[in-house]
């Protein structure tokens, strides 16, 4: 059996009309050019239906196959077999199995695997790493969106003392400090991974009483205690990496949309976890949960609901959060 094709000698671009045949473990090229070569020194390109198949010689000369079917019969006769991966790629059954497995791995990894790994990793990591990450952040915020607090120092100290005297819902509270600032962007409170909880004058003014302020502080302490920033960092890097693997050879724009949507799910999960932490903390210290719910309502009245819809927002809706508080009572 002789296979039709073209032979290229690796020295010039001349296409030699030639045939390939195999006798006793030796490949024979004949036609415009003559050559023999032991079979075990040759490389055969992977089987595909549409790309051309090539046999490559040790010196980079190659034979490009024209008659693919005859060539495949020859490969079978000489005992050559495709790798498992190539065989899977060529069968629709293997492909569908791969598709189902990929979907399964992606969904379970996203919902359970990654959050668990991120949780374990973040908690095993020394707190000093997380702190060094945001060491310059407060300076930056002070320049951009914050101003010195106008709250009397006595009131600041009283709030801080009351909060620090409270029992945390679980052991191992990280070192933290409460920082009071005036805000240029409206009522807000947030925690930096460096352990600073920033409370704004505007938020204190908005709340009806100190219990409501305390419940916000407890929520922020929850973010710190549960190591949310580090977990988010690990999770979003992993999501970004997987999305790049999948969409890497399409456009970056296509890749960014799912990344953001997938990441926001983790953000909402973190908010729920911080709410639960605050609920536990308030309960442990005998503060009525209705205060926390009322605080959320006041915030919603002041700054409104995130208009982007639930799949793109970083927080669960206020209604959902209040509902969660009522269920905890």
């Amino acid at each position, binding site marked *: 059996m002789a296979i039709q094709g073209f032979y290229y*000698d690796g020295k010039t*671009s001349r296409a030699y009309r030639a045939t390939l045949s195999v006798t006793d473990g030796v490949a024979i090229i004949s036609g415009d050019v003559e050559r023999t070569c032991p079979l075990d020194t040759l490389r055969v390109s992977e089987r595909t239906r549409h*790309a051309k198949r090539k046999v490559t010689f040790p010196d980079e000369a190659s034979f490009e196959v024209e008659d693919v079917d005859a060539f495949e019969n020859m490969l079978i006769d000489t005992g050559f077999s495709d790798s498992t991966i190539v065989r899977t790629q060529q069968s629709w059954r293997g492909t569908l199995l*791969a598709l189902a497995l990929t979907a399964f791995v992606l969904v379970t990894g996203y919902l359970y695997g990654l959050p668990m790994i991120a949780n374990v990793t973040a908690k095993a990591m020394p707190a000093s790493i997380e702190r060094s990450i945001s060491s310059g952040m407060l300076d930056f915020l002070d320049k951009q969106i914050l101003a010195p607090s106008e709250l009397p120092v006595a009131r600041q100290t009283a709030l801080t003392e009351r909060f620090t005297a409270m029992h945390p819902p679980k052991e191992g509270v990280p070192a933290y400090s409460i920082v009071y600032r005036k805000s240029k962007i409206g009522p807000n409170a947030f925690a930096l991974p460096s352990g600073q909880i920033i409370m704004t004058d505007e938020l204190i003014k908005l709340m009806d009483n100190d219990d409501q302020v305390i419940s916000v502080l407890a929520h922020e302490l929850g973010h710190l205690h549960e190591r949310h920033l580090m977990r988010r960092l690990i999770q979003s890097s992993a999501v970004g990496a997987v999305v790049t*693997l999948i969409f890497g*050879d*399409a456009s970056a724009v296509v890749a960014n949309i799912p990344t953001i949507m997938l990441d926001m799910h983790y953000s909402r999960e973190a908010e729920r976890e911080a709410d639960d932490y605050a609920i536990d903390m308030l309960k442990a210290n005998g503060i009525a949960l209705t205060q926390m719910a009322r605080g959320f309502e006041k915030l919603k009245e002041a700054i409104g609901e995130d208009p982007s819809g639930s799949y793109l927002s970083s927080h669960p809706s206020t209604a959902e959060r209040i509902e969660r508080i009522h269920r905890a009572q």
Partner: protein
Amino acid sequence: MSENLPLFPASADADRGDAPQRFFFNGTGSEYFRIWIVNLLLSIVTLGIYSAWAKVRRTKYFYGSSTVAGSSFEYHGNPIAILKGRIVAFVLIVIYNIAMQTSGRLALFMIVAVMAIAPWLIWKSLQFKLYNSSYRSIRFGFRGSMIEAYKAYLLWPLLALFTIFLAAPFAHQRMKQFQHNESRFGATHFSFHASVGSFYRAYLLVFFIWLAGVVAISIGLGGAIMAFIAAIRTPGNPEPGGFIGFFTFLFALYIWMFVLFPIFVTLLQNLIWNNTQLGAHRFTCEMKWPRMVFITLTNILGVICTLGLFMPFAVIRMLKYRVESMTLLPAGSLEEFVADTQAQASATGEGMADLLDFDLSL
């Protein structure tokens, strides 16, 4: 396969004439889908390690499916080399992202460091890509010096930046000139003849098309913008209708960018390849922008509607159109290219460049 045969010269003598040789792309979406999904699964379960092998397999498929004058291309990239590059790139990206979170000096330092190292990476990547590509068993190669790479990928882009992009077409021309003038096929040089002026004309044309679109959108949605301005001037609760109109306006501009990009790609690819020569052989590239816009938009829609499953089909459609728009105009025999015996290439660079997302095709 056999039904394609009549398209190719039946024997070695046939391409001795000066008949134009079209490029063909025989890959299909359904076959690439199967390659893609199997290799994607392996890449995910090996935590990305297999992605280097997946990339080699994918590239081999693309190259092996592209033919001109009856012969296909071949890719020789070594997965281990690509894996090493990807590991280095991964570490760099992690450091970069952490630095970005910290704000301030470290972040600035990282931006400068990335800018300083990028030209070297691209230079290495060009060497790797070309050295690992062959046609008729003759390897391609890249000879440009590092100094020239820094001019093309750092000096001129910085100039473009500091001239609020007025120098961007110039920088782009210098970049392509460097890439194409220094590329070789065996011992034969490519050369690049597109002038700076022609790049300015292409950019200006794209700019005016963009402007015309923006004007049209503004006229069409002008009422909505007026309503929005009125809404923010009115104290008290802004009217939601104004916002919806404004977001429609922004959305229209966003969609317009999607339409514009393929027009840009079309003009530039045509300009670049119509002015590139291999020795005395020339190329023509006849991409049509309506077709490109159609392919791009339907690809995006397809990928969104199938939650990503259309991806491999989209990639093949685009590649097929871009490859098959090209024709080689031989000036004599295509049989007399000689291999460059001293050619060598180091393997760094490649993995990094592809992870850092440089598109070197334009």
